[in-house]
């Protein structure tokens, strides 16, 4: 480094930010060296996203100073951030569904042939080149609504790069990715840094921090704890720093006792929206007190399987029995009545009404039952009491959020609202899709324990997870899904991650 290059690409000093009564950030500093990958770690609601939104100009800090490449700057809006070379990929994507990938990328920075006529060919070519350079290959002509989450994320990154940014903020980029996709993202990040870019990454996965980051800044409840050199600390050091106590990274399952058959799916066939057969002659069964994990690479029919069970998609043929009752092709309401509850993987689309208050979202499925209503009239005092209980039990933050819009909660706390609601209903069968997505290690520990408790009480749990760690930690039985079929029914004690990984990829043992 020559003397003329500034010591830090980003320097945020003494940042304060409150929302109404919530103090999201109090006197936080962040110093990021150019050309490094810098991780930001903290519990759900610690203020990570808020700090990054301030850097990206989405929020204005109440107090504090920002220096970019050594120069003091005002970042009033994202446009200003982009002009300073800062780009951000959000926790929840912000793409236009019925635009093509190319259109989304150039939106606001269109290349024209003069007179405002879009030069689509040139744009497509630029995007393809850019993608190739960093391992972010996409088809510029595909519509966003037709591509996977991982691709959407690539589009978000490309969108930032297309605007010529040097500092890239990634807010929980790996929460929605499969292990394979994470590997490829890490590769992309390394290429970007080699190219002189600076990356700030928020993640709850300590393994990833160890794998990519050089420095890690830890914040807890809006306050700075420390910035450390990642090589000098262990994963459990990091966990302790962020939570402030010992965290157990594995779950104690105790005695298991498996009972009667709860769910049985036989010869199920399901097509996706575009008519492609995604579930192909699939059969599985699940008993009381059992945790069955479906392991598979994303896109192998998990979504369609769950949609068919929960009443969102039509089964073409086959049968779904819940305690002997046929629930094939029933409405979501009938599925509920059969005793099934679901933690849906798409929390913002299917799981929550973001503009409802926390109290309202907590009774989204029970508002018409006692004690929350009587003869069609809601009992608000009861609903709020219930909210207070759940907020306490599941440590939803901030504590006084019952009347707050769910939209204003941090991503992890939104997830806790869904988990709280579904577990509270004590269903005979709980379908948990990525139940710990976006949660901090402390919350993950709690949710996994809650799932195990449910099963110990005799409830059946169908776990769909992309993370093998989670699968092995929780499952009594593992079913590997590949190409719409269950290709193996395994006992976790008699197999290992390598074998399961191989089966997931379509291999044979």
């Amino acid at each position: 480094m020559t003397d003329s290059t500034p010591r830090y690409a980003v320097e945020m000093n003494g940042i304060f930010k409150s929302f109404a009564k919530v103090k999201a950030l109090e006197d936080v500093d962040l110093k990021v060296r150019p050309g490094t990958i810098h991780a930001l770690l903290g519990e759900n609601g610690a203020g990570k996203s808020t700090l990054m939104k301030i850097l990206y100009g989405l929020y204005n800090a109440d107090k504090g100073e920002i220096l970019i490449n050594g120069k003091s700057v005002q970042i009033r809006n994202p446009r200003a951030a982009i002009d300073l070379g800062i780009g951000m990929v959000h926790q929840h994507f912000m793409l236009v569904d019925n635009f093509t990938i190319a259109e989304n990328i150039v939106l606001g920075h269109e290349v024209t042939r003069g007179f405002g006529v879009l030069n689509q060919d040139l744009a497509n070519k630029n995007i393809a080149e850019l993608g190739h350079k960093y391992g972010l290959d996409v088809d510029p002509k595909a519509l966003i609504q037709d591509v996977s989450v991982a691709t959407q994320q690539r589009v978000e990154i490309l969108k930032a790069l297309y605007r010529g940014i040097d500092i890239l903020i990634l807010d929980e980029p790996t929460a929605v990715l499969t292990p394979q996709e994470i590997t490829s993202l890490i590769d992309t990040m390394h290429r970007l840094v080699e190219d002189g870019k600076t990356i700030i990454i928020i993640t709850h996965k300590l393994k990833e921090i160890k794998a990519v980051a050089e420095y890690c800044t830890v914040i807890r409840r809006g306050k700075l704890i420390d910035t450390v050199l990642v090589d000098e600390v262990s994963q459990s050091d990091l966990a302790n720093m962020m939570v402030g106590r010992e965290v157990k990274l594995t779950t104690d399952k105790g005695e298991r006792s498996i009972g009667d058959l709860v769910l049985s799916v036989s010869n199920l066939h399901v097509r996706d929206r575009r008519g492609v057969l995604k579930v192909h002659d699939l059969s599985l069964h699940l008993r009381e007190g059992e945790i069955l994990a479906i392991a598979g690479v994303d896109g192998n029919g998990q979504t369609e399987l769950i949609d068919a069970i929960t009443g969102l998609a039509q089964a073409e043929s086959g049968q779904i029995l819940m305690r002997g009752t046929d629930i094939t092709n029933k409405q979501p309401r009938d599925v509920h009545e059969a005793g099934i509850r679901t933690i849906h993987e798409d929390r913002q689309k299917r799981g929550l009404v973001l503009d409802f208050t926390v109290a309202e979202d907590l009774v989204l499925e029970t508002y018409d039952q006692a004690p929350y209503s009587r003869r069609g009239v809601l009992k608000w005092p009861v609903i709020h009491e219930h909210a207070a209980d759940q907020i306490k039990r599941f440590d939803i933050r901030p504590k006084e959020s019952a009347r707050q819009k769910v939209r204003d909660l941090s991503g992890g706390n939104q997830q806790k609202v869904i988990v709280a609601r579904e577990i509270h209903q004590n269903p005979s069968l709980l379908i948990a899709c990525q139940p710990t997505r976006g949660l901090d290690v402390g919350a993950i520990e709690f949710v996994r324990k809650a799932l195990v408790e449910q099963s110990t009480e005799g409830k059946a749990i169908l776990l769909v997870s992309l993370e093998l760690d989670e699968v092995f930690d929780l499952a009594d039985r593992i079913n590997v899904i590949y190409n719409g079929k269950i290709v193996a029914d395994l006992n976790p004690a008699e197999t290992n991650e390598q074998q399961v990984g191989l089966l997931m990829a379509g291999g044979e043992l």
Partner: protein
Amino acid sequence: MTSRWINLLRKPLTAIIISVLTGFIIGAVVLTASGYDALEAYRIMFSGIAGSPKYMAQVVVNAVPIILTGLSVAFAFRTGLFNIGAEGQFVMGALTGTMIGYYLPLPPIIHPIVIFALAFLVGGLYGALAGYLKNKFGIHEVISTIMLNWIAFYFNNYIVNLPGVKVESTLHANPILDSAKINFFSTAWRRSDAGREFIREHEILGEIVKTDLGAGIFVAIIFAFLLWFVLRHTTTGFELRAVGLNRFAAEFSGVPVKKSIFLSMFIAGGVAAVGGAILVLSTTNTVSVLSAQEGYGWDGISVSLIANGNPLAVLFSGLLFAALRYGGMLIQSKTGAPTEIINIMIGSIVLAVAVAPALPRLADYLSQRRAR
């Protein structure tokens, strides 16, 4: 600025007040630019309305129909639907009111109640038609309700033109029976000796008696509270709001989404139609062959926007809207300035309300500058 002042910017009521003021300022600019004395014009408007019980009563009378169309639009809006069809539903209600008011003789009090019920039903079904089209064929309610407005318009003209319906050599249908009217004071009474006596002896009340003031305003207040209650305190309202805010999550949690959309449009249509019936039962007493859309439904959109979709606030925004309109007429008759200026002012208020969500951001910006 102190932070208390800055925090005021974050309150919804502040947004409304600032928007209204903005509208007045723009109105003043336009008045001045066209060579009128803006202050004088506003003085005429305010003292005109505030100084006269008759004018005030007239404002209330004028406000009632647009409060109901405003409620209709607001209710649909709160459940995620854009009811541009209040205009047509209103026409259907007015037509129903006239027909039942003339052809179905019933005792007083019962008669208007039956009319309101039937108008609600007819308008409700007319609104629900848009809900049905959305559910069944995915036609957006904005498109279908605009078309339905025209269908109602021509249907009205068709019915009014039928022989036996229209009063010969006029452009209107047979007026309703007296038993259907909801005015507090009938024209006949006003012209009777007792009526004349009363007007002479009571200065203020006498003035009010000269207007069409009737039970309509109570109907409007009842509906405003009813709709607020439904939205806020019933399980049905919970479902409707859930569907409006995120139909995918609502569907997944077991809410019957299509039924909700249908029901919401039914209620919205019914409320707008009651507005039409009130207009007939208290003011026009009949319906005419229309040459252009009357605009009650369109005004309802503005009224509901100013109230930010809140049924209780619609009561006030409806009165404000009617007062501005009426004041505009006063300005015109006294100064000669065109009423269009008032319409520009109202338009500016609505626009200012639309940009009001930017105020909290302004507050952020100000508190940040202060911190520096």
